[in-house]
């Protein structure tokens, strides 16, 4: 079953006085439970594609259907709700809230969803344990290593059981061993929870872990291979 359908997607934006054609007609279909890497050089349009899929950025032309809904026609409020309930994010630089503990960071999206405190606590401790951070719940991000912070970010992204996790270069700031451990965690979650993962990456290791590799170049899909 198709979770995401992107048709003739174009995105132009202005940078200073010049127009950048970030996406020039992308066609893509991603099914539920896939573990996909979108690879390409800098400026190829990977991050823009993830931003448009999640409704963080608007489209210039084309279609994005996610979980049966047309993302391009949604109101900002609907997009916010969609991100809150159906999409998890893992960013390159962890992007945890530094004033919150690891557990509170994981609880944050559940707080926004209105999940009761006791349930939030139980779920967050459970998910931290699953990403190998049992006992780290009280730590604040600045006191944790990069790998630990990224695992908290993964826990935050998946704790609400989203349909899709978008991970923008999640291993870029990690050494290869930590990156591999993180990918193991995500792969396991993909297999056990059937959560769909889409990565944008330069990292060959991420590409190796992925069952499907989509290469983009100059705002277009260059190749799309499933192993």
């Amino acid at each position, binding site marked *: 079953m198709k979770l995401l359908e992107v048709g003739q997607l174009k995105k132009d934006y202005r940078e200073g006085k010049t127009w950048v054609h970030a996406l020039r007609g992308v066609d893509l279909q991603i099914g539920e439970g896939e573990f996909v890497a979108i690879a390409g050089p800098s400026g190829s349009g990977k991050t823009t594609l993830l*931003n448009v899929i999640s409704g963080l950025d608007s489209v210039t032309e084309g279609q994005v259907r996610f979980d049966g809904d047309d993302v391009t026609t949604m109101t900002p409020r609907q997009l*916010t709700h969609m991100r809150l*309930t159906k999409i998890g*994010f893992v*960013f390159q630089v962890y*992007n945890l809230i530094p004033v*919150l503990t690891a557990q509170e960071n994981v609880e944050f*999206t559940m707080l926004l*969803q209105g999940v009761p405190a006791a349930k939030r606590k139980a779920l967050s401790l459970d998910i931290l344990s699953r990403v190998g951070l049992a006992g780290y719940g009280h730590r604040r991000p600045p006191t944790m290593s990069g790998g630990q912070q990224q695992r908290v970010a993964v826990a935050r992204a998946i704790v609400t059981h989203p349909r899709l996790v978008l991970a923008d270069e999640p291993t870029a700031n990690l050494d290869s061993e930590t990156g591999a451990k993180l990918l193991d965690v995500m792969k396991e979650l993909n297999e056990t929870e059937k959560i769909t993962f889409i990565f944008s990456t330069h990292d060959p290791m991420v590409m190796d872990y992925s069952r499907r590799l989509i290469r983009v170049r100059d705002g277009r899909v260059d190749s799309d291979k499933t192993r």
Partner: protein
Amino acid sequence: MTLVRIAWRNIGRNKRRSILSALAVSFACAVLIFSMALQRGSYADMIYNTVHAHTGHLQVQRAGYWPDRTLARRVTSPDAIMAVVRALPHVRAVAPRVNAAGLVSKGKRTFGGLIFGIDPVREKALSTMADVIREGKYIEEGDREGVLVGSLLAENLGAGVGDEIVFLGQGADGSLAAGRLVVRGLIKTGVSEMDRTTLAAPLATIQDAYSMNGGVSEVAVLLDRDKYRHEVAGEIERKLRERGLTNAAVLEWPTLLPGVEQSIRIDWNSGLIMYAALVLVVGFGIANTFLMAFMERMHELGVLLALGMRPASLSLMVYLESVLLVLLGVVGGLAMGIPITRYFQVRGLDFGVAQETFAEYGLSPVIHPELSLLVLAWAIGIVVLISLAAAIYPAVKAARVKPVEALRHT
């Protein structure tokens, strides 16, 4: 974990900046508390000095006497009224008076004057007339012909202590009122209008000369505190009604001296504008701090929006940070402002440099700030209102943050 808790922790991110911002609010709040209390204290002194100078806190007059002050509308039974008033709590002194007008002459010089008939003993207990004698002495009990003359009037008449003066006017019944008086003392109140026109002579002498038939123009009442004024006025009215003295009216000093109350109101209101301007300057500083704190976290705000936080919640969170910081500042301001103000409320603030000037007019050079709930409410109100208004801009900006643009911030 709530937005309040997140906002609270965000305040602790840059402790030095937050402390400085809170201190700015604290300082503004403390300055306002002290200044407003000082202002209220000076009003209390002004009221005290005004009511002690002449009017008293209250006056019992015949209904219809005020504001024309026609002699014919006199209080015919002053002793009965004074007996009622003296028996009431908070009443410190009571004095009957006749307020007459006439021409005052010495030799060939003649000037218009306001001639007060006073009971020297009771008047001394009520007003500061005895304290503002610059030359000569006060009228003694039993003196029938002595008179106190305003220093400027005496100068105009060319009269000194021991000189004779004559007065001429119209009595309550329309008859000619005339008499001869001997200057016992010269008074200087500092209010040129009074010093140019005032004469104070024994009550009986003026009553006789002006055909008052034992009546008086007013019975002035001095209380131990101005705050009881309204309550005592009501009580006097009630008691007089009970005794059938229904043609008497009780007037409070703001009615008798509308200028004093108006000048207090004008001074207070202009003070409020000045304080608001002061806090506005602080407000700009605070707005700058809030804005800096907001801009520094732009990327993080983008993340929050990406995670599904609604712009309104984000705006609320940013605003809550400002609210908490301002509240911290206000608590600090109260902690600073109240003890300092209380200290000077007890000890008084001595404007010793101007001591001679104050003393000349029978005023105390020491002002006691008056801390009250009104002062605290105004001080806190102004600081909170302007500070929180200053925080609106960052909060509005937060509501308009575009997640994708915010995420590009590093």
